[in-house]
């Protein structure tokens, strides 16, 4: 048994962190949010270079051939640096293609994905709940309906969209009949939109359909979002500890006040076991273990609560300066706030976990997709 990250994974994590230190430092993030397109492009192309968009693409298609756990490492780093990118679509599309694409679909799309000539957003919210009337149906290769809160990186060219029977479709963003309504969330580092589809021509992944793969994709999305939130939490704790060293009140560092110390200790105590939980859930999805989808629910629900606590506590340790725009601490706070709701808030996810374990008769807020209990 070897529970934890391998030496390779740690090295990969460090290298990726270095890349973000260089291309997504706090000052760069601010520049990108202020509209510096060159900085955004530099970050994106650096990510392409290190293979981040093709991380789970099999090597025969030019990708790194890694797994969900490695993708989670990447997302943890993205959250840590509040990097203004969203790789959810590219990771999910890679996995969806690998598992349910035809050979020719794999050959075409995975290559494009790795090269960066196609980049993906994804619309999953309607498959989790009918928030804002979200539902998507397909007839004869055309999609109709709405998906609220799709992950739409501004520069993405395509979207992965499931329909109400669990089939997966590739939609080109400039297709006729597709209307995007930009959403503005508190988190300005990632782009979201609502899709309205009217007879949109789309390409179906050849072997997709049915709830199982879709459930796995949702679970993977949840794990990646959790990783993002955990990375953000870890960084917020570190910033709080550092600030508590530097900031003095009443003539001493505030970190020597028991109340501040204990708050930091509580953050650490909550965060630390979440790493193991996240690794295991990711690993389970890689190995397609029987409880993988439930494990993802646990990771998402737990990390959503832990990160919410950390976001608040770390801001409290910073006092007034934490509340300013200038320090930028709020980017992490808001990223965590959005991660909490993406893929389902913790209450809905816990109800789903109870149902998936056979304890209850389906959540009252049932999955929009009918799905047999395992």
């Amino acid at each position, binding site marked *: 048994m070897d529970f934890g990250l391998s030496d390779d994974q740690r090295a990969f994590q460090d290298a990726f962190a270095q890349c973000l230190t260089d291309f997504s430092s706090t000052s760069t993030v601010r520049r990108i949010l202020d509209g510096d397109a060159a900085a955004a492009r530099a970050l994106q192309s650096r990510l392409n270079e290190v293979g981040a968009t093709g991380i789970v693409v099999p090597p025969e298609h030019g990708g790194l051939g890694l797994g969900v756990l490695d993708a989670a490492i990447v997302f943890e780093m993205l959250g840590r640096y509040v990097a203004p990118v969203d790789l959810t679509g590219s990771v999910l599309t890679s996995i969806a293609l690998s598992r349910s694409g035809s050979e020719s679909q794999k050959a075409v799309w995975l290559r494009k994905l790795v090269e960066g000539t196609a980049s993906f957003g994804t619309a999953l*919210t309607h498959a989790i*709940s*009918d*928030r*804002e009337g979200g539902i998507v149906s397909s007839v004869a290769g055309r999609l109709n309906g709405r998906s*609220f*809160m799709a992950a739409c990186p501004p520069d993405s060219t395509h979207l992965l969209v499931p329909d109400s029977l669990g089939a997966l479709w590739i939609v080109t963003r400039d297709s006729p009949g597709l209307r995007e*309504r*930009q*959403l*503005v*969330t*508190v*988190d300005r580092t990632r782009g979201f939109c*609502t899709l309205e589809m009217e007879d949109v021509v789309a390409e179906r992944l050849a072997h997709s359909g049915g709830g199982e793969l879709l459930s796995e994709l949702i679970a993977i999305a949840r794990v990646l979002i959790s990783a993002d939130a955990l990375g953000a939490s870890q960084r917020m704790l570190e910033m709080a500890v550092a600030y508590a060293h530097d900031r*003095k*009140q*009443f003539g001493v560092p505030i970190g020597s*006040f*028991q*109340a*501040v110390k204990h708050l930091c200790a509580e953050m650490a105590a909550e965060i630390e076991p979440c790493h193991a939980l996240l690794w295991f859930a990711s690993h389970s999805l890689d190995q397609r273990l029987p409880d993988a989808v439930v494990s993802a629910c646990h990771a998402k629900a737990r990390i959503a609560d832990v990160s*919410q606590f950390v976001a*608040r506590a770390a*801001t*409290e340790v*910073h*006092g*007034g300066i*934490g*509340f*300013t*725009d*200038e320090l930028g*601490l*709020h980017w992490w*706070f*808001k990223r965590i*706030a*959005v991660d*909490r*709701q*993406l893929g*389902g*808030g*913790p*209450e*809905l996810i816990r*109800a789903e976990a109870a149902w998936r374990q056979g304890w209850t008769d389906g959540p*009252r*807020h*049932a999955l*929009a997709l009918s799905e047999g209990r395992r």
Partner: protein
Amino acid sequence: MDLTLTPDELSFRQSLREFIAAHRHLAPPESDTRLGTEERRLWQQLLLTNGFLGRTVPSRYGGYGAKPNLMEQRAISEEFAAAGITDRMLVANRQGVSMLVPTLLEYGTEEQKQRWIPPTLRGELIWCQGYSEPGAGSDLAALSTRGRVEEDHFVITGQKIWTSEAHQADMMFCLVRTEPEAEKHGGISFILVPMSAAGIDVRPLKTMTGRSSFNEVFLTDVCVPLDHLVGARGRGWEVANEALKHERGALGNPEVTQTRFQELVELMTSEKVNGCRLIDNPVYTDRLVKLQSWLMALRLNSARILTCRMKGEEPGLCQLVVKLQGCELNYQLSALAIDVLGEVGVLDGGSDFVRAGGAWQNNYMFDLGLIIGGGTAQIQKNIIAERGLGMPRRAHAV
């Protein structure tokens, strides 16, 4: 226990409601953040003339001159709140009317009272508060803005932070270290600084909410006449605490929370997800009722405080806990609203699909700011433990 109102109180409420019904359209809209407009001044003067602000300020200082009557005060605050007229809409220069005026009445000279109070009540003078500094937050008395005396004026240099409305204010009441030799608390003076004076630079301070409701104020050799000193030199700490007493009362006011709570109930009973109203999710509803019980306790606690005050008794602990509990409750209320809205809950003002113009998110962050600022939760706990429970003042190792 007697919760009935006297005929006088009932008729006061009645006249108040009639006044509001007749004049509500004159109130500036909530979204209007400009303070110095003619419209606002007229509205404020209308309130003043009818005794709904400056009610107990003697008429020789431009007030309404009524005898203090807490029931009337409460009726005013409740009825305006119920009509959706927030504090910010009620008074353009909140800090002047609610903090500076009472402070001047207590500590000002006769001349200062006559000079500053009437125009403040009439909305002609907008005030801001210059207390906090980058190096003096929780430890406010560590402030380092200095004022030396030269001839007949102070010359003030330093930096203030968290100064709300400084960019629109005419004057700032300000804490300045004028006696550098004195011990920490004893060297501070309370000085009224004209914002138009040379050497003042106001820079907006953007917060996490994305708005700039606060400022930084830089003072460089700002000259202020000596007669702008309120109270004795070196006694500013005492004067400032009087003013803060009036501010603290306003934070964590449960009537504001009650309005928000009603909005949340409205939201949860009207919105549906997956065919169920939000309130039909028992986990959300359990949280909702939990907050309702807590809110009810805090509202009734206010009634208890009011009774204490009317009887001239010191409310003690039940007053000391108001801010800590009230701000935390507000925060949790916003957090619940966001959770029930799910993905919709993280939308920001101006976005498609956003509810209440993004107010829940804005409150969620702003309430956290209030937990941090205005006397942090930690300071509040120290106060409760030390003043309320008589626990030891000093903290020790471990």
